[in-house]
């Protein structure tokens, strides 16, 4: 049963994809692709209540796996994909180029949660990263093209780092198995442990926007149409989270690596808020909030790694799942607000609850997520930093709400145009769902309802909101920081590197002249001789 569901999780999008290659089926396949995540949803729900399973297909070298952390993220991601896809294709029929990019991204975005061996994981990870380019970058707008090129550059760099990491993981496994479970079991004793870990953190760090690899995310979300931004920020980024969960050796205490990752995570959490507060477009602010939230996840995983706590995997999967729902709902909120023009008081409360859920507002799913992270941020410095992160998040989300309500002109027009009408009509239901759904999946929801916990959750949010409002009242202007912050430096460096191109061209032209090539021929003979006689 579970094996069949696992296979269907990947097979369903694959079948829709195959149908796209037949001209007369393409349109229908794309229109009905919202059904493709259905087996994944079923598998996710099934897997939540069952022991971890692994299904191997030795002939294909393929292995699928489902454990509770993966199942939770899979279920939520599948739900999100289904809802947004159905709405998008009900309202308008995007072209084949967009549709196939969407389907490929969905394929990868579901597959990462069930891939059980290195090669399959690498494949689906590439799918969730690269085709997303087609969701936003084919445009006349040079800013969108720039965002696309930067996105691809980071995605490819991340792929390259991970490929090397996986090669080291595979080399460290003495029996030649490529199953993730086996290579991770062998990692702590592997001679390439440190190099592999560094590459894993860097590779997946690019996907979740850890500094200094965060710059692509704001550009991407600002360039993507709202439905695409919703699934990319919600489901897409979680590929990086599941990557860290799968490829950090959480069961074995590694203090150095754990603490380094935690430090990087906290740094990212605060950095994201700081830069986000200087932004003015709601989409960009949400992107920085994602960077900050992913920093919190990285910090918690780092602390779990330091203590050898396998529980961090499940906790952070829950934290990530909550972020998946809330962040995508927040993107849709931009569309809803833009269409409504002015928010009714009730809608404003709902939007505020949604936004502050990310800061752990009591009674929202965010409170549960915060509770789930408590095991990692139990005491001492981490606890303090986590509380500060909550306050910072509340500030940033208040900043977001302010700019959301003040949105006007072209930005509002774009947001209205991009968001399918169905999603706008059902926005309150979606928002409520995003707030409440986590309650059904939490380990101990009752705990979050105790007065003590409610107070613990409430005061940082209140402080954050007050600080943000006070700051606004004070009239102090934030420094102007371009969206993507550090990316500007990278672009400059890249331009410098591109300026080297003519140098290569000149060298090539010289080397391709007869005398040079003929001399090279003789030199190669001599070099081989010299090497052989060493």
């Amino acid at each position, binding site marked *: 049963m579970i094996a069949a569901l696992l296979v269907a999780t990947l097979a369903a999008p694959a079948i829709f994809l195959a149908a796209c290659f037949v001209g007369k089926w393409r349109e229908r396949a794309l229109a009905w692709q919202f059904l493709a995540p259905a087996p994944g949803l079923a598998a996710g729900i099934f897997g939540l209540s069952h022991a971890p399973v692994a299904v191997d297909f030795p002939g294909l070298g393929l292995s699928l796996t489902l454990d509770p952390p993966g199942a939770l993220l899979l279920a939520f991601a599948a739900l999100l994909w289904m809802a947004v896809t159905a709405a998008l294709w009900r309202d308008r029929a995007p072209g084949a180029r967009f549709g196939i990019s969407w389907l490929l991204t969905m394929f990868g975005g579901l597959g990462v949660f069930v891939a059980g061996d290195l090669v399959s994981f690498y494949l689906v990870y590439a799918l969730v990263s690269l085709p997303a380019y087609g969701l936003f970058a084919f445009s006349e707008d040079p800013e969108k093209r720039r965002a696309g090129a930067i996105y691809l550059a980071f995605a490819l760099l991340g792929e390259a780092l991970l490929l090397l990491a996986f090669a080291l993981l595979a080399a460290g496994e003495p029996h030649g198995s490529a199953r993730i479970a086996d290579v991770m079991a062998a990692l702590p004793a592997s001679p390439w442990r440190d190099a592999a870990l560094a590459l894993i953190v860097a590779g997946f760090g690019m996907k979740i926007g850890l500094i200094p690899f965060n710059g692509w995310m704001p550009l991407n979300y600002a360039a993507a149409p709202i439905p695409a931004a919703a699934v990319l920020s919600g489901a897409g980024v979680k590929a990086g989270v599941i990557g860290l969960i799968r490829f950090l050796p959480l069961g074995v205490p590694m203090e150095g690596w754990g603490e380094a990752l935690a430090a990087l995570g906290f740094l990212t959490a605060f950095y994201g808020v700081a830069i986000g507060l200087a932004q003015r477009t709601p989409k960009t602010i949400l992107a920085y909030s994602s960077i900050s939230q992913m920093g919190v996840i990285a910090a918690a995983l780092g602390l779990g790694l330091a203590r050898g706590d396998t529980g961090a995997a499940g906790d952070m999967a829950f934290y990530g799942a909550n972020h998946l729902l809330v962040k995508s709902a927040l993107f849709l909120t931009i569309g809803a607000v833009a269409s409504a023009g002015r928010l009714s008081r009730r809608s404003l409360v709902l939007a505020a609850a949604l936004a502050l859920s990310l800061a752990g507002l009591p009674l929202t799913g965010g409170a549960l997520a915060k509770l789930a992270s408590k095991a990692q941020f139990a005491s001492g410095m981490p606890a303090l930093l986590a509380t500060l992160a909550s306050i910072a998040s509340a500030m940033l989300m208040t900043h977001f709400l302010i700019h959301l309500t003040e949105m006007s002109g072209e930005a509002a027009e774009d947001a209205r145009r991009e968001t399918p009408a169905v999603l706008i009509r059902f926005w309150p239901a979606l928002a409520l769902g995003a707030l409440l759904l986590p309650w059904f999946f939490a380990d101990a929801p009752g705990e979050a309802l105790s007065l003590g916990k409610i107070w613990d959750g409430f005061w940082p949010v209140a402080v954050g909101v007050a600080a943000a409002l006070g700051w606004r009242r004070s009239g102090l202007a934030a420094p102007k920081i371009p969206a993507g912050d550090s990316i500007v430096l990278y672009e400059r460096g890249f331009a410098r590197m591109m300026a080297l191109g003519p140098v290569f061209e000149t060298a090539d*032209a010289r080397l*391709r*002249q*007869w*005398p040079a090539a*003929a*001399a090279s*021929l*003789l030199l190669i003979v001599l070099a081989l001789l010299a090497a052989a006689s060493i």
Partner: protein
Amino acid sequence: MNPSLLAGLVGAALVGLGLYGLIAHPHPLRKLLAFNLVGSGVFLVFGVVARRGAAAGYAFDPVPQAMVITGIVVAFAASALAVALILRLAVAGGDVSLDPQASGRRDDGEAE
């Protein structure tokens, strides 16, 4: 000086001359002659090899002779092909030179 040594030295000299031609002269006809010089030098080395009778038991090994004859045929065919190309190039009005500047320009021509 025994014949083997003489053949070897002459062979080496021919190869050396040919290598100079390989590097120095831009005109393809010169290159072709240089190739033939190197080739002749190599054939002489084969002669030395035959003379020494490397294959166990033969005073004079006939196998390298066969190889040299084959090699000469191959080199002849190569020369013929190259000369044909040079002629075609001259007739077609192209610059009969391996001068890199000219060829560098050619690379940017249109496809097909």
